[in-house]
């Protein structure tokens, strides 16, 4: 069964995802777009929680900052998406650098509390600064990026044009998220990424062998913040609006649940978690309004029965079948 491991799953899924709008249902495209963006958000958190062992309870702050940055630039300043999107990552990274500078000085529960406090500061600013953020009402009607150029290309290349704007935006998110995930993958496999794992396993020992643990943790914090910001930038446009609750602490728990559901410390886990959770959400919301009740029950089940999440369960099953095959 080792051939299963050789298949380039990432590429296959990426290519398959391009055919979602061809299914002909706007609903599937909507869901897929949602999943793609949350996959990036959850994976960025996993860099902190899963790889570095820093439990952040305020990761939504950077998601929110990214969403507001892109939203404000595109709606109020009329800046093109080409600049507004990277700006989301840059501004989120700047905030993450400032907050992270203080956060990484604390350990465990105090780290979690300070990340929560920082996120609430961001939320409070978004909630009250009416002139810039729209305050409690948020900022509706963020424009889509312009896709006119695609139409002009389509005049020359057959089979390219003819999609709705929301579908173009889905393709765009897909490409951007795939690129971001590829970068994150490179980061986790680089010597830098390995060092983060070492720090997670044993910070004291890492310190002893001469690693500047705080600096590494700060770098991971800033990177995670930047990618969360990029996800937020896409989400604001996808959601057709940016609202203060993007940065509220319950959002941070949602993305943590996603990461845990998929499986922490595995690269694909959070994306799987995003897919399963959002799909379940859509399914269940059509039957009952009590989605939090279901989500809470899933979470309890996860914590008590499958603490490794879906990836952990699959890995367990994989090992079990291997053992059966050898016996």
């Amino acid at each position, binding site marked *: 069964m080792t051939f299963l491991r050789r298949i380039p799953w990432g590429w296959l899924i990426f290519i398959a995802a391009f055919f979602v709008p061809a299914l002909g249902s706007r609903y599937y495209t909507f869901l897929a777009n949602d999943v793609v963006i949350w996959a990036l958000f959850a994976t960025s958190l996993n860099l902190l*929680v899963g790889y570095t062992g820093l*439990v952040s*309870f305020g990761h939504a702050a950077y998601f929110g900052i990214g969403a507001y940055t892109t939203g404000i630039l595109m709606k109020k300043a009329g800046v093109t998406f080409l600049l507004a999107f990277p700006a989301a990552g840059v501004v989120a990274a700047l905030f993450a650098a400032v907050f992270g500078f*203080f956060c990484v*000085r*604390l350990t*465990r*529960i*105090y780290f*979690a*509390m*300070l990340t*929560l*406090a*920082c996120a*609430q*500061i961001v939320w*409070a*600013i978004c*909630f*009250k*600064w009416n002139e810039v953020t729209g305050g409690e009402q948020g900022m509706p009607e963020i424009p889509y990026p312009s896709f006119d150029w695609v139409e002009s290309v389509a005049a020359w290349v057959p089979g390219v044009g003819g999609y709705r704007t929301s579908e173009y935006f889905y393709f765009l998110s897909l490409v951007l998220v795939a690129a971001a995930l590829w970068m994150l993958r490179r980061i986790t496999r680089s010597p830098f990424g390995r060092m983060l794992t070492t720090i997670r396993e044993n910070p004291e020992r890492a310190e002893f062998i001469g690693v500047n643990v705080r600096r590494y943790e700060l770098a991971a914090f800033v990177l995670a913040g930047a990618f969360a910001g990029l996800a937020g930038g896409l989400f604001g446009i996808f959601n057709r609006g940016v609202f203060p609750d993007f940065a509220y*602490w*319950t959002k941070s*728990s949602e993305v*943590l*649940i996603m990461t*845990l559901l998929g499986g922490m410390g595995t690269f694909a886990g959070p994306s799987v978690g995003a897919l399963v959770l959002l799909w379940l959400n859509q399914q269940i919301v059509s039957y009952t309004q*009590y989605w*939090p*009740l279901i*989500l*809470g*029950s899933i*979470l*309890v089940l996860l*914590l*008590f029965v499958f*603490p490794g999440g879906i990836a952990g369960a699959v890995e367990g099953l994989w090992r079990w079948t291997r053992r059966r095959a050898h016996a």
Partner: protein
Amino acid sequence: MPDPSFVFAQCLSGLTAAMFLFLIASGLSLIFGVLRVLNFAHGTFYMLGAYTTFQIVQWLGTGPGTFWLAALGAAAAVALLGAVVERFLFRHLYGKEELYQLLFTYALVLVLSDVAKIFWGTQQKSVSRPAGLTGSFSLFGATIPYYNLFILLLGPAIALAFWFVLQRTRTGRFIRAAALDRETLGALGVNVNALYTGVFVLASFLGGLGGALVTPVRTIVPGMDTEIIVEAFVVVVIGGLGSFWGTFLGSLIYGQVLSFGILFFPRFSIFSVFALMAAVLVIRPWGLLGRPLK
């Protein structure tokens, strides 16, 4: 400069808010001090206390004394729920990673707040002030409802009772010992499991009582749980996680910062409390009166 009577009224309203917060935050701090767990569900216990009070008042009508009966009944019901949760679920997570414990308490928030929605819907509910405390009096030009005066007196009374139990009774000594070294205490023959359940029940009772007593002054709405828990976090972080008087001090600071913040910088009042929390965490992570964790 606003006139003194207004400042006085503002100060009193901050104090009243502080006493409510103290009721809730003291339970949170107790659980953290002994069980070493941040309990997100504590805010939900507070909300359930409020809804249960509303329900009991509905059943009993508005005769004299029904409010007090309802408040105690609600607090007891929440305490019972706390016992069940601790005994059958929470206990199994003590040795596990902090993240699992945090997320478990968050799962409780999700489940219990939906259960409250199933029972009571999303319409806001209110409870009228108990008979005998409906009026108000004026002092230095500020109008003070009798009920607020009652809360202002009750807060310190509960603080003193709490302090007495922790410092002067046998059980209190065990609780303090469990906070320091659980294993040694167990080895000395104390039933630590029962003690933990007891602490959780006591904390839940306080949370439920806070929710019950807040009903005459605030409306009961879904979402009051996630709002109060963040405030309670701010309080215990400022005062010191697990520190009893720290929680009291934290509540007082929070109440004053918020009520004067609204007065002078209405835009930044919420911002200022979170900034204060962050500042305390940066300078003294263990809080103003807390001790560093080992």
